[in-house]
């Protein structure tokens, strides 16, 4: 990697100050994508602001009808949380299925959604549960937060503080892992929420995570796998690579959605 200045603030204020201290300043959460990128010399920040010392960004609470998770909470912490398991077990399963133990012990919710890898798991959960992202500047609905592959609505001086997940009636996540990377080739998160059924797909879309209106309409009437019979997902706009062509991914969206629905009960 290239040389850079390393900064590890202990408070959000200091982090924001560090973030605005130069042109090529980069935030680092768990670093699970950023560090490999640096090692391959694909990024050259002038300064790295490591958020791991900012205690106020960590933790899990239940607030009213929502589970609120701090941006710097690791996947392992979410996977082990009794509150999460009691309120949104689908999220427990999702967090437990990210990467491997090393990744889960370093990687964070905030890092994952800010990076918005098109095959990451968390974006599907935020979209399907109708989560709200709180930053130092504003609150954003998940639908407005994700803005295409590796792109979000975040501005340069904006840091994700926490994510509020409304507790659904039922929810489940089913992931078909790309066999080499174990990222989602297709991951489908289904949720029965107060506002109707929501279905979000990660891994498959050329523009990253997306919702499936046809599934949501059918499931809002009948939240069961059988409700999806006969609804085909078009291959247009889906990824094709050596691990699966677009038509395979389109097919898997239906298969994984049904498996998620069966798991959701």
């Amino acid at each position, binding site marked *: 990697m290239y040389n850079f200045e390393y900064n590890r603030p202990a408070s959000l204020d200091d982090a924001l100050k560090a973030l605005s201290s130069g042109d090529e300043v980069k935030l680092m959460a768990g670093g699970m994508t950023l560090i490999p990128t640096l090692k391959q010399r694909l990024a050259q920040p002038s300064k790295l602001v490591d958020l791991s010392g900012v205690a106020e960004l960590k933790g899990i609470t239940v607030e009213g009808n929502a589970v609120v998770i701090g941006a710097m909470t690791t996947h392992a912490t979410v996977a082990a949380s009794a509150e999460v398991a009691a309120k949104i077990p689908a999220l427990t399963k999702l967090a437990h299925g990210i990467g491997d133990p090393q990744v889960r012990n370093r990687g964070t919710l905030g890092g994952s959604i800010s990076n918005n890898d098109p095959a990451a798991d968390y974006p599907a959960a935020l979209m399907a549960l109708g989560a709200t992202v709180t930053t130092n500047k504003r609150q954003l609905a998940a639908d407005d937060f994700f803005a295409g592959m590796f792109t979000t609505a975040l501005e340069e001086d904006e840091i994700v503080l926490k994510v509020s997940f409304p507790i659904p009636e039922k929810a489940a996540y089913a992931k078909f892992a790309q*066999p080499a990377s174990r990222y989602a080739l297709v991951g489908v998160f289904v949720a029965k929420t107060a506002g109707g059924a929501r279905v979000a797909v990660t891994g498959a879309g050329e523009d990253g995570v997306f919702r499936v209106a046809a599934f949501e309409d059918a499931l809002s009437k009948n939240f069961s796998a059988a409700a999806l019979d006969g609804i085909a997902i078009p291959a247009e706009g889906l990824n094709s690579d*050596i*691990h699966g062509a677009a038509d*395979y991914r389109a*097919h898997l969206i239906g298969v994984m959605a049904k498996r998620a629905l069966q798991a959701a009960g």
Partner: protein
Amino acid sequence: MSATGIGASVRRKEDLRFLTGRGNYTDDINRPGQTHAYILRSPHAHAKIERLDISSAQAAPGVIAIFTGKDMAADALGGLPCGWQIHSRDGSPMKEPAHPPLVIDRVRHVGDQIAVVIAETLGQAKDAAELIEVDYAPLPAIAHPGKALASAAPQVWDEAPGNLCYDWVIGDEAEVDAAIKGAHHVTRIELTNNRLIPNAMEPRAAVGEYDRSTGDYTLYTTSQNPHVIRLLMGAFVLHIPEHRLRVVAPDVGGGFGSKIYHYAEEAIVTWASAKVNRPIKWTAERSESFITDAHGRDHVTTAHLAMDKDGKFLAFKVETIANMGAYLSTFAPCVPTYLYATLLAGVYTTPKVFANVKAVFTHTVPVDAYRGAGRPEATYLIERIVSQAAREMGLDQAELRRRNFIKREQFPYQTPVALVYDSGDPGGCMEKALKLADYSGFEARRKEAAARGKYRGIGFSTYVEACGIAPSAVVGSLGARAGLYECGQVRVHPTGSVTVFTGTHSHGQGHETTFAQLVSDKLGIPIENVDVVHGDTAKVPFGMGTYGSRSLAVGGVAIDRAMDKVIAKAKKIAAHLLEAAEADIVFENGEFSVAGTDRKKAFGEISLAAYVPHNYPITELEPGLEETAFFDPLNFSYPGGAHLCEVEIDPDTGVTQVINFTAVDDFGRVINPMIVEGQVHGGVAQGIGQALLEACVYDEEGQLITGSFMDYTMPRADNLVSFTLDTHNVPAPDNPLGVKGCGEVGAIGSPPAVINAVIDALSPLGITDISMPATPPKVWQAIRSARPPLAAE
């Protein structure tokens, strides 16, 4: 059997240091004044270098030197040599293009070496490398072996027209054609043996050091055969005589063949260490390993199997195109010929076999031996076509094999393709495997799976392989440019402890334990009193190294022979001390006694006398107790067995899950059953990897698409199943220890069992072919094509 002797599952002595992180690998070695090398590599599969300017880079901070191919040429260095020469059917020698460690003006695969930057730190070397200016004129590239011979294909070498390295044959083509023509039934198959990337856990590394005061060079390297590297690099590339060149291969974290070969980086750091007069370290990054470690397999084959009305095999004709990559790696030419075609009779009495192998150059990483080397390719072909023949003939898989097996009493068996199998019992192995796998209950399991919506299948592989790679006279007549014996030295210390020096190299195989067991067993001393040394040309007299499952079958026998010499000398000493005739001395359980009396001397008393020869037959015998033996066997070693794989396929996703894997193998005499089982585990895991997961993909421009673990799928624990393993051992008469190789059989026997199981599972749909690896989208697509989707899907 003693607790530490032959046949005991002694825990591996080496594991304490490996499991506690105290192994000493090449990258752990740091020499005083050490510098770091970074190698600038080609991003193009094929390009002319029109301009190479290192001037800005030379001025970068920390840079000590930058060398290019021209600098190496100016020192009149040789190219990386090929250790095996094949002749084409017309008698002409194979095309053998020059392979300079750094290219001069043309790159021929992504990863080809262009320049080396030597700097105080690795970061500085990388920074400087970014300042090297290279103007490439990209040229068209060819990556796929099946397309390399086409008339319009881009040419890799001017001296190899049509990209043909050699066009080799074995057997009588006219005879085989005639048998095929008159046959009751001919089964035809076309298949690909997929290219694999080895991915040893430890990446390659090399540290070169030059001592100006003595003129001695030392190379620390990740090698399976340090003496071979010393020979190849010293004699052919750098022109350094053996006594001035020490090669050390310390702990090595896996090789699987990829660390046999002499690589450019070894020559570069050794040569450059004298140029800069400081030690130089180079360690591959994982992404470098993908584009520089020799790959494996990569065959495209068409074959015909002729049968009579009873399914008796009459003739087998094979036409194979084998990818050599851009350059000939050390042993590449022998893999698709003498390690492949000589095995095409398999475990069957097929009387006539003919094979034609065309080796081709492509703009890809060189291809060479990878765990099994030629024998997995042969076994995959034979067992696929035999299984297909059984389906076409309407015969049970076991029954067709029974009708064609070489029977136990027919050994030694002369095949029509040169080899003489010394022993084996293919039928015995298969019958035992059928019982273990509950073959008779399979159809019930298939039905039960179908009720759950899954396709279940069972696949067979009954195989033999030729390993214990040795007989020097034989391999010499087949084109090897080296002998393939092995050396063992047994040094008995004054108090009776023993150090064994072996020319083989352990990089995961457990030699430090297995060889110590040989000594403990034969000399009757505790295993703790035995140490095994390998991997250093300054310590071990000589050796050809470890590959081709040869360490025990060849190197173990050399140690055994050295012990014979030790015992013979010790008996003379004992006879003197016991005042008896030498012929009356009996050596048993670590004690020398006079037959028929209670007079005896312990092993340690004899060794002490040898080194403190106060009372010693000094006029007849030298002091000391240390002996060396070289062993060159008269035949290969022929392990074999039966692998049965049971899979279930999920039609919704195309995912194949291995449900049961049963292997019954014949290893002759087993020294350490636990280590042997571990070798089978690893080999089967790699075989399942090849069959279901590992796809090495080059695009049309010769770019490696699967250049990292993000895209190249290595087998992991959750892809596997708990294996059911057993043995059916027939001691090897042609091996003095009765042993057979075991390191490669898992990777040789298993892939066809897995794919045959997949095809069996899908056979109700009329599917007769699935290529390796049987990935989920491939299987899903096959199901979809065979069974049009229902309207609701």
